[in-house]
């Protein structure tokens, strides 16, 4: 099996006291806990920290781990026959170091990734509910609006009759109803990990992520669209065409539109599950071409002379403070 340096993971010396290990774990947990940290990779990092702490925080497990000796991280090694007879259930096979400690019967459990935090002891004769599993999927806005089916594959830890933990692979398809939003979790009851000793199975959760769209940003069921208009359209009003998720909408701009003003197109957002839909907001941006021709410049000059508008009038004179 591959060696994992739990001390290095927790950034402590091999001689560290229980108190130092606890402190190191708390510091790292606060930094990488998936409920707290948002950066990519935090969850995997936390799993490693948690796995290391599960072993090093338990004096018996720590001693057993220390007895394995020193190896380089990732190095292939086999526990000594003596170690193996004490802790393993015989037979060399491909197992993960964490699985090995898990089935050493020291109890414990809990921790992230353990799902329900059930202590999974070998040979349990009381029913234990199966693990809940989560899978994430990324949908386009169009898929979220119409509903779709997604495929998934995952591995769930399962306890075999002889008390060994093995990874079972699962795959399938889940129907995603229309009207899901970013961050929503769909629950498929009873499709998580198998229960143990007659316990009920866990649940499967599908977490919805919406892929960035080239035009629209989704906020709940509402969609936002940046809507550029020309200065004369802003001043005079115009009949314009606005894209929506399903085709285009003709809209009348009233004269005197301002930048940042929101144009609400009711019911043109993402549909709700049963009936109705969110709204589509066109956020007005008054834009100018990068270069303007001579004729345009002349017209602007004429406009500047003719207009009494002073946009910075309120910035003139002394301030109150």
């Amino acid at each position: 099996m591959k060696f994992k340096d739990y001390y290095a993971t927790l950034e402590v010396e091999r001689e560290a006291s229980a108190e130092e290990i606890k402190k190191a774990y708390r510091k790292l947990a606060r930094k990488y806990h998936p409920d707290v940290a948002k950066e990519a990779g935090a969850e995997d990092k936390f799993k490693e920290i948690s796995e290391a702490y599960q072993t090093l925080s338990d004096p018996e497990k720590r001693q057993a781990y220390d007895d394995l000796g020193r190896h380089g991280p990732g190095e292939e090694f086999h526990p000594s026959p003596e170690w193996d007879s004490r802790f393993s259930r015989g037979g060399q096979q491909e197992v993960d170091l964490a699985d090995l400690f898990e089935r050493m019967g020291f109890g414990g459990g809990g921790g992230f990734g353990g799902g329900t935090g059930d202590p999974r002891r070998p040979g349990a004769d009381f029913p234990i509910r199966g693990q809940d599993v989560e899978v994430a999927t990324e949908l386009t806005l169009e898929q979220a609006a119409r509903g779709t089916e997604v495929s998934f594959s995952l591995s769930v830890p399962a306890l075999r009759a002889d008390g060994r933990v093995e990874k079972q692979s699962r795959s399938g398809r889940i129907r995603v109803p229309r009207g899901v939003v970013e961050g929503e979790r769909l629950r498929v009851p009873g499709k998580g990990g198998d229960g143990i000793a007659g316990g009920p199975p866990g649940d499967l959760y599908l977490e919805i992520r919406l892929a960035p769209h080239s035009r629209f940003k989704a906020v709940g069921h509402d969609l936002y669209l940046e809507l550029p208009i020309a200065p004369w359209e802003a001043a005079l009003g115009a009949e314009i065409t606005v894209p929506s998720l399903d085709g285009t909408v003709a809209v009348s701009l009233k004269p005197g539109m301002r930048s940042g003003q929101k144009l609400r197109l009711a019911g043109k957002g993402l549909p709700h599950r049963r009936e109705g839909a969110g709204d589509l907001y066109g956020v007005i941006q008054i834009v100018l071409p990068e270069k303007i021709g001579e004729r345009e410049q002349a017209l602007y000059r004429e406009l500047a002379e003719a207009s009494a508008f002073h946009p910075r009038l309120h910035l003139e004179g002394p301030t109150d403070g």
Partner: protein
Amino acid sequence: MADDLLIPDDDEACTVALEELLAASGLGHEEVIELVQFGVFHCAQHAPVWTFHVHTVRLARRAARLRDDFGLNVSGMALALTYLERIEALEGRLRELESQLPR
């Protein structure tokens, strides 16, 4: 279960019973009662048994993780969940406002 088409719960009307919530989260009975008292979990108390919206399962699992990984007591869990909920609401508001800014 390969190639099964799985149909999720109809979420809007979906509730879980107290026992289910306990089994799915790993929280204890007393802890759930206290978290209801703190106002972090909402349950339909008029029903013959306590039932919770299925979203509570996610909150409860998060509470159990925070308890196990940081050694929090119920007050700590309530406080952390309240703050996390507030952060998520603010992140939602931030996304909404960012949607209105020119790119």
